[in-house]
């Protein structure tokens, strides 16, 4: 049995040299580098240190853990390392940021803060399918968090939507609970890593349903089925399930920015050299920025690079 201790601090003072928004792998790495550079830094985290990896069952492509590690454990280790170098994590939600003021003003649900430089490492949230029935049945059979909700589907038939790395990895976890899992993929091929695809072949209860589109979720008050369409034949069918886990991509957590920095058409933050954004003093790191790969390993690199950018920026100020 694990007992995970969050180590957030209460607000003591409101001006810092640097502020990091988000305590996922990118934000915590930035905090480690800024801490070691002795730059007074605050980190804001609204849910729990670790970001999306905190709800990831198992991570095995991050170096240093030859047998893999749980997302919960990796989050805790990263948090401990950041705290060791003086990181100050505050459990607070960012409401808005004024990037035109100097110092930058950060509005939170616990009052205003200022900082000379910020690193936006606010990460992403699971993308929704936006099909009929989804909104009404979230929490009533539809879930975005397998580690949170898998035990409720013990012995049940379920679907997982999306055959990318997240969908397949979480299907493997869900197979410990569910009776059967159909993984519905929009494309005609799964996009997960080959090693994960090889692994699911060992599980008879996991079946891939390629080139199918989820059209709607069915059920009154609780999920009873999912209507899918074969994209080739255009034939529709209903799969009777009590659970649906959705892994169809990510949307950036940038609402609090109010379009203050340049973003790509999907809302991810555009970055330049040393991960600077279009606004002076603002940097972006991790999944929230435009990038071709969103992994723990890439977020770590981003965090280090953005911290380096902040350090140089503060020295030149």
């Amino acid at each position, binding site marked *: *049995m*694990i*007992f*995970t*201790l*969050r*180590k957030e601090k*209460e607000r003591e003072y409101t001006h810092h040299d640097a502020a990091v928004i988000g305590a996922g792998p990118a934000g915590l790495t930035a905090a480690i580098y800024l801490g070691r550079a002795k730059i007074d830094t605050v980190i804001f985290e*609204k*849910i*729990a240190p*670790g970001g999306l990896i*905190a*709800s990831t069952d198992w991570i095995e492509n991050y170096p240093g853990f030859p047998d893999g590690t749980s997302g*919960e454990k990796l*989050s805790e280790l990263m948090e*401990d390392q950041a705290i060791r170098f003086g990181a100050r994590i505050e*459990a607070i*939600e960012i409401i808005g940021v004024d990037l035109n003021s100097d110092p930058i003003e950060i509005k939170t*649900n*616990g009052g205003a803060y200022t900082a000379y430089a910020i690193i936006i490492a606010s990460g992403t949230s699971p993308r929704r399918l936006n099909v009929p029935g989804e909104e009404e049945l*979230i*929490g*009533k*059979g*539809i*879930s975005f*968090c397998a*580690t*949170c*909700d898998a*035990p*409720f*589907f013990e012995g049940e038939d379920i679907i997982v939507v999306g055959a990318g790395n997240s969908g397949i990895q979480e299907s493997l976890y869900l197979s410990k609970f569910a009776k059967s899992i159909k993984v519905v993929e929009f494309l005609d091929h799964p996009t997960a890593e080959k090693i994960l695809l090889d692994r699911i072949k060992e599980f008879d209860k996991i079946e891939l349903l390629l080139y199918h589109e989820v059209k709607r979720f069915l059920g009154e*008050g*609780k999920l009873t089925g999912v209507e899918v369409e074969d994209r080739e034949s255009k034939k529709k069918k209903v799969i009777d399930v*009590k*659970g649906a886990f959705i892994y169809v991509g990510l949307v950036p957590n940038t609402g609090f920015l109010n379009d203050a920095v340049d973003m790509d058409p999907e809302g991810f933050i555009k970055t330049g050299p040393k991960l600077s954004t279009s606004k002076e003093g603002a940097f972006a790191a991790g999944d929230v920025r435009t990038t071709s790969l969103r992994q723990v390993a890439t977020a770590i690199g981003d965090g280090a690079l953005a911290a380096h950018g902040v350090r140089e920026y503060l020295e030149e100020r």
Partner: protein
Amino acid sequence: MGLIREEDKKYLREEFSKGLIKDVELLYFADKNDQSDYNLAMKTLLLELVELDDHLTLTVKDCSDKEEREAEGLELCPAIKVKSARKGFVNFYGIPAGYEFSSLVEDIIDMGSDKLALPDDVIEEISEIDYPIDLKVFITAACPYCPRAVRTAHLFSMVNENIRGSMVDANGFPELSMKFMVSSVPHIVVNDRSSFVGALPPKEFLAKVKEGILIK
């Protein structure tokens, strides 16, 4: 080896030493005949916690003492109630394991101090509530979003005694989870009548609670 990591004990000693100014009693109701690992873990966890600061004490009671349990307002067993001179119905049905351990620690510090991390407008709105509200927050230990909902319910009860906030370990109480159709957490049940899902900010959480109260 104990349940709480040695480095976490060191951290907790410092936090309790800085934060606690009032005595806090952890009231633990358990079935005295329950020799399960679950029950043993709960008791061990609490024993390890109270050893970390002189302000903390543990009182163990038997679930079969219905009168006493009812006097404490506890419907289920096992339960941990965090008590101090400060008002508040801060309660855990089942073990606060995984991410929920932090909820217990933060509740202890809040109940042992005058801290209250809620926005002023929310405090004002909660203070005006003059009817009973029972909030059961169903969680699973691996849910990183759940402590936010548990803590919000507990903080509400520290503002207004008309509000009772309980964490419920969904896996520890499967029948109750089924009764309230819990299939995603955090799942918040309002007055055993209505429910909503999600770790919402305090203001939105309060709005959902009030909305739930109106459902007959």
